[in-house]
């Protein structure tokens, strides 16, 4: 099922389908290894509810929900 990354709950994971938008954020996400086919696992949500901590390519990355909303993932 295709979902938006910001909707995922901790311990849920999915495969990157698409990154929306252009410009610097898109580039940055690519540089950080968020590319089509990569598996992303949501690890944690910050105590105040935002940002989130995800695991991608074996390391931890934090993103605001606003940024995570640009990433579509296929949840298995």
């Amino acid at each position, binding site marked *: 099922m295709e979902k938006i990354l910001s909707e995922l709950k901790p311990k849920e994971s999915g495969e990157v389908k698409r990154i929306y938008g252009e410009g610097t954020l898109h*580039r*940055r996400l690519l*540089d950080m290894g968020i*590319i089509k*086919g990569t598996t992303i696992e949501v690890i944690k949500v910050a105590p105040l509810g935002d940002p989130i901590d995800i695991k991608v390519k074996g390391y*931890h990355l*934090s993103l*605001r929900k606003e940024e995570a909303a640009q990433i579509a993932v296929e949840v298995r």
Partner: protein
Amino acid sequence: MRNKKITIALAGNPNSGKSTIFNNLTGAHQHVGNYPGVTVEKKEGKASFKDYEINVVDLPGTYSLSAYSEDEIVARDFIIKEKPDLIVHIVDSSNLERNLYLATQFMELEIPLVLAMNMSDIAEKKGQDMDYTKLSELLGVAIVPTIGNKNIGTKELLETITKVYEGKIKTKTAHISYGPEIREEMDKLEKIVKKDKALVDQYPWRWLIVKMLENDSSVLDIVGKSSIAQEAISQNEKSRHHLHLHFGDIPETIIAGRRYGFISDVCTEALKPSIKKRHDLSDRIDKVILNRILGIPIFVLVMYAIFKFTFTFSEPVVGWLEKFFEWLSEIAATYIPEGLFQSFVVDGLIGGVGGVLGFFPLVLFMFFAIAFFEDSGYMARAAFVMDKLMSKFGLHGKSFLPMMISTNGCAVPGIMATRTLENKKDRLITMMVTPFMICGAKLPIFALFIGAFFPAKYGANIMFLMYVLSVVIAFASAWLLKKFVFKGETAHFVMELPPYRIPTLKGLLLKMWERGWMYIRKAGTIILLLSIIIWAGFTFPQNTSLEEKGMSEEETAAVQLEQSYAGKAGKIIEPLVRPIGLDGRSGIALIAGIAAKEVVVSTLGTIYSLGEVDPEEPESLREKMQADHSWNPLKAVAFLIFCLIYLPCIAATAVFYRESGSQIKWLLFLIFWTTVLAWGSSFIVYQGGRLLGFGG
């Protein structure tokens, strides 16, 4: 004889242990500067090996060579423009794929590349079994395993650097296959770009065309200025459009995907299959540190610990320095005959140098504590925990620390603490609002006025209200800056949470010294100069006839002050401070406060003919001011609010100027912003208070 000089660039991701390798290579032979016009630090050092003298340039840590941040642009420009003899890329072996992504971009630059596979011990512990020979073959670059914090592999790295430079190790850098569709478009661009000989002499052609397809703005600028500009740009647009249609996605996505695909193939071949451990220590620590309930209390505790460490440990050192400068002043006063020159040496020179050095222990201790939490990996967590709250006001999770250091502490180390912020906009906003916090030097002013004009039982409440007000003003002002001054500059929050690590003492001490020395060298000179100017403003013109009129020493001082340039300036601004309930005498005190906030109190002492009043014990001054009927509680509040907000002291202003990239425009903006805000707030309080019938 060291007769062969070469320059190498040290590159790598943030948190790859790059500075540790830099320290290992160069020892203490390093110096820090700034790249012109930007706030990015430039670190250089010298390493000697055999008959080589190696100039090592430590580039800022970056994840990529796109033009995403100031750091990336600086790193890229250095490699492209200065053309170092060799690039050493420090790779965090325990985080291989993302680290090698940067390597794939260096491989397009046609500059010899050496990979230092750092933290190889951690990678092994994680169960990673790497075949270095195979990896070296697949990438076509020389590889040296290193363990930076144990200084293992440093010699081998130097050996490999020289051998690659001499051509004794021959490598043929692999080129990533971007696939037939992209290749076809690259060929078209290659033909066009190669027509301009000067262009491809200066820039590696492969890099140019890949970056063009990636729509990289600064490369498009470069090509746009070349002789083949029109043809190249229009072909690039066609190519990008074609690829977009073909893949159904923008070319940069495909290109990044191919790079990561290449890396993933390389890793599959070079890594021997192994059992992956499920949970590492970092994940377990994060369960506590980032815990829903404990996260924020832990954050507050860590920030408080940094504050406490900074001020508790520097206090005795600051005390010794004060004693030393007092002693020096006494000596000077004994041996130099009384008069103008003595005043210059004692009050101007020794006072100024003492003022500069007085902050030095604070800066050192604070940077030690900050370096500890930075290197251990906590600072990124701090930003993670606080981001939601801070970003609402245009601030960053890490903006909390500078403001905390400043509260009851000092804005000088506070502004310097903004170095933990990577984004320029976040840094500037934080720097501008940090001085609004009530620093230690503002406390005596509050104590004096609250003590003089309010009943003792309300004292604590009023002080508390002032603290609340300082926080409100700082946050409101950050919000306004975000809304109106930095509008449109969005800073994304895409931040790595690096694994927790134990910092090395050597690394901490070097970082502390480096940043501390920067303060002395950069800000110290300006602070000294300004203190002497302020001293002159209060000393000239001299009026020698006063003593003959039979006035006491204190009265003479009061008259002298009023007739000095600063005193006259106080008179001139009188019409400006009238609407906020103040007079020329307060004006003088406020001007004096620019030298250092506690000087407001001692200047009032001089004005009320009490001689030098110790800001810590102002009883006599308090009584004098109570007896002076031109004051009332409302005016006192207006004065305090003005003091709370107006221009920071010269030391903080000088540090602000340097830390904001030495740009006059930000300095002028700070002066404008704080003055307008201070006057406006005091005006509202004073006039509003009068309308409501307070302060008769």
